[in-house]
């Protein structure tokens, strides 16, 4: 079983932060799963500082991997895109400020799908991150590096971001725990925007309690993000063991066509386990689920087409030659963006353009309302919803790259959560032919406490999280 935060704290007390960080750096060094886009050269320095100044924060000396779309002052932030090669932010994201204050050691930036656009980390300009359980398979995405690094024991905790499942999908594929917080719970200041109205930064770890500990650090109010909501935090404090009387809703629509039989079985087994632990379940219907995927992609692409407009080769990042500014920008974006990013920019531009705005963009926002209402109705009767995180276990590298739509379809169970803005956690619930499968526990707005409690209790009563991936060195 991999070390959790409490183990690391003990190790730091008995040795030093420097030694602990060095041991993780060594693991990263030895690995070949391509989880990182860059390693912080000052990682050991940061650890030494913790040792010498006796820094006492809740994460003092804990090494952490940061998804490469979260701005880190002085440390390259590329979103795994060639267009941002060489870009070094002059400022820290809110979550990074909070982590530094808590004593965490930023050990490096983790690989991802280019600008978060993918479900497999295959669209990264640095190549795919390999799944630690089977290196012929994808790690999931877009926070593939963050999940794989955690599952391979290269860091105990990491940060990802989740726009339509980007924390939960790789967590499920790699056998890690990943939380997508309620929209507004974590400041997005410093997170390079893909789809602003959908995404949140979220923690990944091998234990639910470590995810909660990270939320305590990053989930504080920040007035630099106008969509950040003041709320009562204390994620660790409310982390009780026990689900007696918990009302679980199981939405039929999340077990539909395309959901692998083994996956369905493992999720039902997990729900059975909850029953054994004193919870009760009912089936619920969320009729607008089938339309969530199309609505999600239209909104995400529309916002993305505008968010990515700033990458024009003028102020930062890479530039191609062009006879005038417009040609320079146009060539830069042709040559430095990958195919999937360009597809999404074009589709988003189309969906917002004159004549199509109402048919696509506005329509998608109305469907979003219906999807949100599905959740509001469901939570009138139940405390949490449970469903498979991903329709299948991790697929083979290259398998879906030529067919964008089939790739989009794997997000079918994760995107409705982002449309509604509710929190959701993916926890390991077993293995299908040696590959991890994730159970998704979805909660009501700002009720992370309940889904963390459910996931924590499940973890305490199962041993899925104790299994080690093949690539743990």
């Amino acid at each position: 079983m991999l070390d959790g935060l409490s183990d690391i704290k003990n190790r730091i007390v008995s040795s030093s932060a420097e030694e602990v960080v060095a041991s993780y750096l060594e693991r990263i060094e030895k690995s070949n799963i391509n989880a990182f886009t860059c390693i912080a050269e000052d990682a050991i320095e940061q650890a030494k500082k913790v040792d010498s100044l006796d820094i006492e924060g809740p994460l003092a000396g804990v090494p952490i991997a940061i998804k490469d779309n979260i701005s880190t002052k002085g440390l390259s932030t590329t979103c795994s895109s060639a267009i941002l090669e060489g870009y070094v932010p002059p400022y820290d994201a809110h979550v990074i400020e909070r982590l530094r204050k808590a004593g965490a050691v930023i050990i490096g930036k983790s690989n991802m799908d280019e600008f978060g656009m993918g479900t497999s980390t295959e669209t990264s300009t640095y190549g795919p991150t390999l799944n630690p359980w089977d290196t012929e398979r994808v790690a999931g995405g877009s926070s593939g590096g963050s999940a794989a690094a955690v599952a391979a024991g290269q860091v105990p905790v990491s940060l990802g971001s989740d726009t339509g499942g980007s924390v939960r999908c790789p967590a499920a594929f790699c056998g890690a725990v990943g939380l997508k917080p309620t929209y507004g719970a974590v400041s997005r200041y410093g997170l390079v925007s893909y789809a602003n109205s959908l995404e949140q930064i979220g923690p990944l770890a091998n234990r639910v309690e470590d995810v909660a500990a990270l939320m305590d650090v990053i989930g504080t109010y920040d007035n630099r993000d106008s969509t950040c909501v003041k709320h009562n935090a204390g994620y660790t404090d409310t982390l009780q063991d026990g689900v007696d009387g918990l009302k679980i809703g199981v939405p039929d629509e999340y077990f539909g066509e395309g959901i692998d039989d083994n996956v369905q079985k493992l999720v039902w087994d997990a729900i059975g386990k909850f029953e054994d632990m004193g919870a009760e379940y009912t089936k619920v219907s969320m009729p607008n689920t089938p339309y969530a995927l199309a609505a999600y992609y239209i909104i995400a692409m529309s916002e993305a087409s505008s968010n990515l407009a700033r990458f024009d080769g003028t102020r930062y990042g890479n530039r191609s030659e062009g006879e005038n500014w417009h040609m320079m920008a146009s060539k830069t974006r042709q040559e430095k963006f990958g195919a999937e990013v360009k597809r999404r920019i074009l589709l988003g531009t189309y969906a917002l353009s004159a004549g199509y705005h109402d048919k696509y963009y506005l329509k998608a926002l109305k469907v979003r309302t219906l999807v949100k209402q599905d959740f509001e109705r469901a939570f009138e009767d139940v405390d949490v919803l449970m469903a498979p995180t991903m329709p299948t276990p991790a697929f083979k590298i290259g398998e879906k790259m030529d067919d964008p739509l089939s790739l989009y379809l794997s997000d079918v169970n994760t995107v409705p959560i982002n449309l509604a803005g509710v929190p959701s956690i993916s926890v390991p619930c077993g293995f299908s032919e040696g590959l991890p499968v994730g159970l998704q526990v979805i909660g009501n707005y700002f009720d992370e406490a309940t889904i963390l409690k459910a996931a924590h209790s499940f973890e305490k009563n199962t041993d899925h999280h104790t299994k080690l991936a093949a690539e743990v060195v």
Partner: protein
Amino acid sequence: MITKEQVEHIGWLARVNIDEEDASEFASELSTVLDYFGQLDEVDTSDVKPTYHVADIMNVFREDEPRGSLEQDAILANAEEVQDGYIKTPKII
């Protein structure tokens, strides 16, 4: 269906240069996806309001108090071309 010409037009709007051969490929890929998006037509949304923000918050402001700016060097460090404190780019037209 989206045509090659439409793809080129969108490419210009989005400042993504598109080569001749890429245009056909994009046209077919984009058409497939747009076709899938078309299923939203089935949903009756006549009385439904759009959701722009899931969090029901309003009136978020900041006081009119200076917070300081970055050093000029920090801003210019990431630019490809710089001259006399300005960021330099190719001419516009």
